[in-house]
């Protein structure tokens, strides 16, 4: 969908919005649904999140800036919606008093300091991929917002400022959240880290 058409529909309202909603669905549903499904792991929740996002898009259309791209703007609204859903579900487990955290940190520091072959080549092996999948699934189940944000950082190269806007947190709170992401990844992925860094 062309962003100028979008902005015009936003100004006109009424039937123009109906046409634009149809156009948005045709242009972006599939790509947003996949992202929703990847993050929420539930077909109905993903479809609901995308439809809710399209509604929010129209509630906020006057804030869309002409120089921006439409899809990243809509995707940010979807991600924000998904973070809200995950927070409402309150599935995050606390890291407090987790003794494995300290041991995992120490072990990974030790392993990643060793001279190793290129980890990207290692990751491609089936064993590593299966191990990662197993660890990552648990990470997503028990710490979904951190896993989701790590995925989005990786996919879109998010900066500190962009993560701060996404989370709607202060820069300081965002730094703390990123630190938590790194620590939680170490805990949940420790088995995979050992496999990747420990085989050389």
């Amino acid at each position, binding site marked *: 969908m062309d962003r100028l058409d979008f902005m015009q529909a936003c100004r006109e309202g009424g039937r123009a919005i109906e046409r634009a*909603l149809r156009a948005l669905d045709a242009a972006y*549903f599939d790509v947003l649904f996949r992202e929703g499904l*990847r993050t929420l792991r539930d077909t*109905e929740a993903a479809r609901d999140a995308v439809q809710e996002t399209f509604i929010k898009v129209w509630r906020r259309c006057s804030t869309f800036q002409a120089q921006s791209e439409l899809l990243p703007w809509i995707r940010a609204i979807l991600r924000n919606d998904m973070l809200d859903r995950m927070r409402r579900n309150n599935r995050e487990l606390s890291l407090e008093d987790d003794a494995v955290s300290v041991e995992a940190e120490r072990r990974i520091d030790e392993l990643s300091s060793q001279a190793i072959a290129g*980890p*990207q080549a290692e990751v491609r092996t089936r064993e590593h*991929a299966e191990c990662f999948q197993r660890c990552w699934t648990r990470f997503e189940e028990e710490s979904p917002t951190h896993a989701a944000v790590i995925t989005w950082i*990786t996919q879109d*190269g998010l900066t500190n400022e962009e993560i701060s806007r996404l989370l709607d947190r202060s820069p300081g709170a965002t730094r703390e959240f990123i630190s938590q992401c790194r620590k939680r990844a170490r805990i949940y992925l420790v088995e995979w880290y050992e496999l990747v860094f420990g085989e050389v």
Partner: protein
Amino acid sequence: MTDSFDDKWLDVLAGRDVADDTPVAREARALRAAVLAQQHVSTADMEPSPAMNREQRVRALLARARETGVLPQARRATRLWWGAAAAGMVALAITVPWLMRAPGESPPVVRTADEDVVRLRAPDPRALKQQVLVELREAGISPAGYEAFGRQGIDAELPQPVPEAVRAVLAKHRIPVPKDSILRIEIEAAAPQ
């Protein structure tokens, strides 16, 4: 670890500063490669569910837009026409099942019809939705269930002619066979008896 480790980790994870070869950078680089590889694999078989085709989806979206005030409600003349039609169907939908109700049958389910949506009321809407979904699936079709604004809903595209097994499920729940191939059901919570 200090903030600088987190900053380095973030930069490498995001694909920036990739020439760095410190331990934290290696760790982030490995994680980045694994996440990207996993995303590539996991999206390969993630196609949107065929249970809800595009037209059904758009209708649900527009209905939601009307409910939330993003779109104006349907025009008054249309509403009046449908209001009259719906009133007649409501009377039929409530009276006939009530007269035909088997002795001791419970809990009560109230049925109305508005435009092309069959609206049901049941003490436990989610349970009724799940029951209808299971039965329709067993009848050989692929309905999509959803939940929006406190309502449980089912959308399904019916093969034509509508198979006997599907007709039997609809008849069991006293849901009329739709005139076109689209079955749309919404279930709200009934007031406590």
